[in-house]
């Protein structure tokens, strides 16, 4: 039972006890003021018992007896003179007994019950009638007081610190009952924060170096700026800044990127043939033996695959997909044409927008997010190329990719 409900319960019992004592005393209607005073006094007593520090604060006695016993002695004295003291006195006993009933050693509790019974019995008029007045009075007040003092004294010897003995030894994992702070569960956010620390370190160091250099009047070094930019791109990628189809940050120690297109296209053609050769015919023609452009092979390949995927998807069985690579006036042209469903003029205009699929494409019932061509344009333009479309609805689509030819000796 916690403090609050115990308080309520004992207040209730106290009021009931007031009723009993007063009834046993045969109160008359004119006794109301007196009853009120008694009830008020009882409530005040209740409040005092809920504030244990008060006794010490009041510094009632130099000897360490607590408030309960102090009041017992005061009211004992008062009750001998009759008046309010003699009414409050039994109530005080009941109050102290109620407090003791909830806690304290078993012997204390037993004595408490005996004290209540004794006080109540002696409060009944007529019990002490036979004995001489003084004896009766003395018995009435002295005996419970003695019991209470015994209670107080025995209680002081008991445990002021109520830490119970554990009923069995502490369970195995707790020779310390304190759990070690467990290693934090690494959720995705933690992982991210952790992964950011390395690139952040790098960024910080280069920033410091460039600041120091600037103070000396030096320009930042090319490779520092590049590394800085790469790390920032990496951090952006980790944090999830969405750059649709952003190319991988330039490899740190890679030579300048270049792509040999003939090899690339012929291997692509071969793989598409393997995968889809039964559905559509794949054909590849190149005008030169080797065509090199200054572009990242991964990005270029990704763009080409997108185009080829579309071509195969939107060409009905029995059709054809043709890849042609040629060089004209220092420019490389790769044309991928199919005999598929094609696009209307309107659709061609909007083909490079995100998440858009043409009528025919939707009608054809095939899947696809419609990002394909937007992605292709982004990938290629970042590499310095261009892409355009030509189509007649129902007669296929022609995608033309253009790159400047890599100048020999350029790096």
């Amino acid at each position, binding site marked *: 039972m916690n403090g609050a409900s115990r308080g309520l319960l004992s207040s209730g019992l106290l009021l009931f006890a007031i009723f009993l004592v007063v009834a046993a005393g045969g109160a008359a209607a004119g006794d109301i003021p007196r009853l009120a005073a008694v009830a008020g006094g009882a409530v005040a007593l209740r409040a005092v018992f809920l504030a244990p520090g008060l006794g010490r604060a009041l510094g009632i006695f130099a000897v360490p007896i607590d408030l309960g016993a102090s009041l017992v002695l005061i009211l004992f004295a008062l009750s001998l003179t009759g008046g309010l003291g003699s009414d409050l006195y039994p109530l005080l006993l009941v109050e102290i007994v109620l407090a003791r009933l909830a806690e304290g050693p078993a012997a204390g509790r037993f004595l408490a019950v005996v004290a209540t019974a004794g006080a109540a019995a002696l409060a009944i008029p007529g019990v002490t009638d036979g004995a001489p007045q003084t004896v009766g009075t003395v018995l009435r007040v002295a005996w419970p007081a003695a019991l209470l003092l015994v209670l107080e004294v025995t209680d002081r010897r008991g445990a002021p610190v109520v830490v119970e003995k554990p009923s069995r030894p502490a369970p195995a994992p707790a020779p310390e009952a304190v759990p070690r702070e467990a290693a934090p569960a690494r959720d995705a956010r933690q992982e991210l924060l952790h992964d950011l620390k*390395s690139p952040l370190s790098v*960024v*910080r*160091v280069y920033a*410091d*170096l460039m600041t120091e250099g600037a103070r000396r009047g030096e320009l930042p070094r090319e490779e520092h700026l590049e590394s800085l930019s790469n790390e920032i791109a990496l951090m952006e990628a980790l944090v999830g800044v969405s750059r649709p189809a952003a190319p991988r940050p330039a490899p*740190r*120690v890679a030579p300048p990127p270049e792509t040999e297109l003939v090899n690339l296209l012929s291997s692509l053609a071969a793989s598409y043939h393997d995968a889809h050769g039964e559905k559509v015919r794949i054909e590849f023609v190149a005008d030169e033996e080797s065509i090199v452009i200054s572009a990242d092979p991964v990005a270029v390949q990704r763009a080409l695959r997108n185009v080829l995927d579309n071509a195969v998807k939107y060409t009905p069985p029995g059709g054809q997909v043709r890849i042609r690579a040629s060089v004209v006036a220092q420019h490389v042209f790769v044309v991928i044409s199919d005999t598929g469903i094609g696009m209307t003029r309107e659709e061609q205009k909007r083909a490079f927008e995100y998440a858009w699929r043409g009528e025919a494409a939707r009608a054809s019932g095939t899947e696809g997010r419609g990002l394909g061509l937007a992605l292709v344009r982004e990938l290629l333009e970042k590499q310095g190329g261009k892409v355009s479309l030509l189509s007649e609805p129902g007669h296929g689509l022609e995608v033309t990719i253009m790159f400047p030819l890599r100048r020999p000796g350029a790096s």
Partner: protein
Amino acid sequence: MSAASIFIVDDDPAVLEAVTAVLAGDGYRVTGAVDSRSALLAVLSDPPDLLVLDVNMPGLNGWELCDIVRRQTATREVPVLFLTGRGEVRDQITALQVGGSDHLRKPFRAEELRGKVRALTTGARRRGSR
């Protein structure tokens, strides 16, 4: 006095480059490795004046590497500086328990790095290990 040699191990090449940019600029001779096993072989055959170790590496992590290095006569006296991403107290103690000399928390500043490297290499020089 010839420049002190520093060996740095980190699985992220960008960190290697960045740390080199600072230390080489100050005149140290820097050698690096991205993988702890090659680092171990290199360090044992040619002990540096200071070993800078990332803690989180695949394969042999920084703690194990330091522990092994401490047990070999050739490298017993080489000071070890850890680069650690986590800052918990437990890690500082583990760094001491495996025989590390000091640690740097990421992200660190160029000046912090310089300070620790200077302190650890001067000590080594004074000990006359080279």
